[in-house]
């Protein structure tokens, strides 16, 4: 594996070298880190000493994203979703620096059932971290418009469950795009949430790093399968003036990354089961892989922000990778 590979080709003058970026993407599924530093994209293999070094930098904020645990799912694609969630938790607990907090980007449950929420909450208590923040997936708001979800996982949130918080010099925004979906449409934020977002960031300096997290991707990955959000452009327009915006999503059960100007989009793996790459199956949904391969397509995402350095490192690692 290449090591500490600094990318210098920059044809579009946007700080991103396409060739190097593709290399980064190719590694994403098997454990790689891409670090945007001073406008230069660097990629490292997982386990690289540079990554380990990053964990020791001063002023660092390290957190972890997990997604799509689907507690209650018991079909062939993974009959033991609690088991693989536990493996993801073990992976988080083995990180050199415990994460300041964990973001769960939705689909905690398969069917919004109280016992499924219970099992998820109980399991996540094993994570060595101070706090867990949630946003709902469409599986968490079935039949009750998310009331049970909010009662349990988003107390004190606004509207359908959105909120923001500040930590480590960055501003975090949890959005809900899985409710009041319209016939024929995609994920949806809605005017009330968009108004709130505009007001929420108004007082912030443009130099404040922004991290947005939501379940359905806030960029158009594959609308044919509903993998996008109809009004995400409006949300992003409120974030245009910020120098560093990171958007973390789940829903599609695979890692994908896109950098557009100052915005980095990233989707996480599931802790439960994979889905096919866009258009590579008749429909989205649980994809069965050979049992021995399952751990190579599930995983967690480790995010590092170094204050004052405008650096945000995103590391995907699969359950079977060594860390």
């Amino acid at each position, binding site marked *: 594996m290449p090591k500490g590979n600094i990318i210098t080709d920059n044809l579009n003058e946007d700080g991103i070298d396409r060739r190097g970026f593709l290399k980064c993407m190719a590694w994403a599924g098997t454990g790689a880190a891409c670090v945007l530093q001073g406008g230069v994209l660097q990629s490292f293999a997982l386990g690289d000493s540079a990554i380990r070094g990053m964990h020791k930098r001063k002023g660092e904020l390290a957190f972890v994203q997990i997604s799509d645990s689907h507690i209650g799912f018991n079909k062939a694609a993974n009959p033991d979703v609690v088991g693989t969630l536990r493996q993801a938790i073990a992976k988080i607990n083995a990180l050199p620096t415990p994460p300041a907090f964990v973001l769960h980007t939705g689909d905690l449950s398969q069917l919004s059932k109280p016992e499924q929420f219970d099992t998820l909450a109980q399991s996540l208590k094993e994570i060595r971290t101070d706090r867990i923040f949630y946003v709902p997936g469409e599986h968490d708001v*079935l039949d009750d418009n998310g009331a049970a979800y909010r009662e349990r996982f988003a107390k004190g949130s*606004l509207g359908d469950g959105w909120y923001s918080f500040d930590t480590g010099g960055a501003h975090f925004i949890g959005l809900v795009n899985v409710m009041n979906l319209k016939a024929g449409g995609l994920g949806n934020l809605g005017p009330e949430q968009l108004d709130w977002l505009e007001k929420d960031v108004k007082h912030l300096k443009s130099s404040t790093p922004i991290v947005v997290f939501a379940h359905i991707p806030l960029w158009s990955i594959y609308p044919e399968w509903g993998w996008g959000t109809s009004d995400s452009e409006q949300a992003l327009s409120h974030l245009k003036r910020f120098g560093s915006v990171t958007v973390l999503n789940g829903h599609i059960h695979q890692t994908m990354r896109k950098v557009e100007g100052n915005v980095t989009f990233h989707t996480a793996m599931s802790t439960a089961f994979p889905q096919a790459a866009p258009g590579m199956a008749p429909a989205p949904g649980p994809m069965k892989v050979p049992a021995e391969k399952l751990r190579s397509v599930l995983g967690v995402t480790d995010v590092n922000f170094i204050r004052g350095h405008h650096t945000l490192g995103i590391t995907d690692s699969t359950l079977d990778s060594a860390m």
Partner: protein
Amino acid sequence: MKRRYRNILCTGIIALGAMLAPRYARAQDTSGGSMHSDSMSSKLSSKMPSKSYGVEIRDFAFGPMTLTVPVGATVTWTNKDEEPHTVYSNDDVFRSKALDTDEAFSFTFEKAGTYKYFCSVHPKMVATIIVGADKKPVATDQKMDGMPISKLN
């Protein structure tokens, strides 16, 4: 504060719904053990009453996507995916709860008309029931040879 207001509003809507419910009386949720239970429907499948029709939910699509039935027909939707789906009328005429694998929902159409519906979990899934007096049922399956439309383009 807003939440409380909305809850009150919701309660109001539910109360209104309860008043109107008899008009749409025959929406039945078969997982609740009503006469259209799963075991009943499988027994019935060999000898379906003349006014019973089925829509299968498979691969994130309703099949057939357009179904024409006579007035008074009962349509039963059955989820054959490993993913929960719902059956929501665009105009709130009928609405199922989330259907897990092999769960079903039935609704009886007493009035002629075109009823568009979708899955509220995956709103890309849209379909239509056409209820017309004295018309023979016509099923137009827009999925050809099991291929989704996106693949045909």
